[in-house]
């Protein structure tokens, strides 16, 4: 459990005068679910974007599995085993659920300069995609256009796509955002199934979700990590209560 999979070292990113990521250092251990919490505007999504490669940090380093990935592009990081879900559901709305997952499988099945064979008839893509849809409970919805899925199903589909890349680390950006109480409880139960099996970095606003899923929590306020610890330690931390939990929980 103690081996470090992802190490963020002195990461810094500013937008003009705004220090969105202010010398952040944190470690994610293999197998753990590591939550990053913080009030609105704390820089959570900015941090995730730098981890996934969609944003370049101004300075600092990101190591993944011991390798420096700070300069790698998002597709390259995906091939190293980093996979991301977005705060605003990011799926292919004009493709079927099965197509969505099959594309994620395809992205990790060698190059795609294959011009002739029908990709939708290719069992090497469809079979694993179907298995993952079954796994996330969308098996019966495989043929449905992604745009026509319910909001919760779309979020599950996005997680299915993340899983289809067979990641070593899943970056989940507010997976229960925009969900009702019941729907978000179901999502939490769903994510709980991956605990221990997958390494997860979970950015989340919903404290119930965070405290039921996380092994460790880092608290981000104004771009700085003010505390890292187990859920019990975080709950008891006076600085955290003051800066954040006190207002909401």
């Amino acid at each position, binding site marked *: 459990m103690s081996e470090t999979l992802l190490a963020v070292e002195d990461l810094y990113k500013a937008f003009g005068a705004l220090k969105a990521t202010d010398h952040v250092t944190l470690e994610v251990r293999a197998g753990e679910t590591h939550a990053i919490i913080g009030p609105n505007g704390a820089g959570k999504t900015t941090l995730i974007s730098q981890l996934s490669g969609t944003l370049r940090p101004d300075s600092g380093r990101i190591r993944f599995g011991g390798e420096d990935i700070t300069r790698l592009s998002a597709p390259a990081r995906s091939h190293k085993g980093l996979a991301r879900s*977005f705060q605003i559901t990011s799926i292919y709305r004009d493709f079927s659920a099965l197509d969505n997952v099959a594309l994620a499988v395809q992205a990790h099945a060698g190059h795609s300069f294959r011009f002739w064979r029908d990709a939708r008839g290719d069992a090497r893509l469809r079979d694993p995609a179907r298995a993952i849809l079954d796994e996330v409970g969308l098996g019966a919805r495989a043929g449905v256009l992604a745009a026509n899925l319910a909001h919760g199903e779309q979020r599950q589909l996005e997680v299915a796509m993340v899983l*289809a890349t067979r990641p070593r680390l899943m970056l989940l950006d507010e997976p229960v955002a925009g969900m009702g109480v019941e729907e978000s409880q179901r999502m939490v139960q769903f994510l709980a199934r991956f605990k221990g099996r997958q390494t997860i970095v979970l950015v989340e606003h919903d404290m119930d979700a965070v405290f039921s899923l996380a092994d460790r929590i880092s608290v981000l306020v104004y771009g700085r990590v003010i505390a890292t610890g187990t859920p019990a330690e975080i709950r008891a931390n006076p600085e955290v209560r003051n800066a954040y939990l006190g207002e909401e929980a």
Partner: protein
Amino acid sequence: MPRRGRTLTIVALLALLAAVPPLAALAGQPFYLDLFRRVMIFAIAALSLNFILGYGGMVSFGHAAYLGIGAYAVGILAYHGVHDGFAQFALAIGASALVALVIGAISIRTSGLYFIMITLAFTQMLFYLGISLEEYGGDDGMRLAGRSVFAGLLDLRDPMPFYYFVFAILVACLYLVHRLVNSRFGMVLRASKSNEGRTRSIGFSPYPYRLAAFVIAGAMCGVAGALFVNQTAYLTPAFMSWTRSGEIMFMVILGGMSTLIGPVLGAAGLLLLEDLLQGWTEHWQIILGPILVLVVLFAKRGLAGLLPGGGRDE
């Protein structure tokens, strides 16, 4: 499944096109042979643009460049006494693919309005290059020294074989695009259009796939250009003017983007309507404009959306 309806629609349309020469002969109106050959040539050009625009999301506003390059490849070889169709078409394909590679390599790094402007700018450069080629007629252009001859097989000076030659190429291009957009390659291309951020984060770099598609489309439009100069027997830099690019793009939108048959319908719709209105009045453009606006407004998926199974691919 709408697929079945779509296949039937395509087959019916192609059967109609195949029946044009005997019908035109029967009616004693050889002019229609000429008109529908023109329709099919532009259908090939529009098909190639739709491949990158409709399926790839690349709004190339300079697609006439490849029409011009294909035409000049044939015209220049013919001027120097080379009438062999194999050599002419090979040069047309090779040259337009090469130019598409250069233009694409630069322009695909940009997106949105910049992409539109860069593709337009490159085409304007080629347009002025055409004007500066005094040897080949400069601004005025020149007569095609002779139509392409495929030794022992085909002579494009005969209107009927020429017609079926264009028809065969159109069918081949339709089949090629159909295979391409449904292949793994095509899925990446379409996924990149649908959601680029998602595509990158599952591990695809869209750039090389887009560039390959851009080159394929350029080569296909180069063939249309080689056919077009055989059709007009004349060649001018106006083949590469930006209004020509706009016309091809309009055919794609009118017919229905991201549908296989849409570009064929768009080319037929625009050119036949033009021809019809020209017969009625010399102010035909005043009528054509509003009709086109109405179609675009009310048939959101273009002409293809009005036909059975002709809507967007699933």
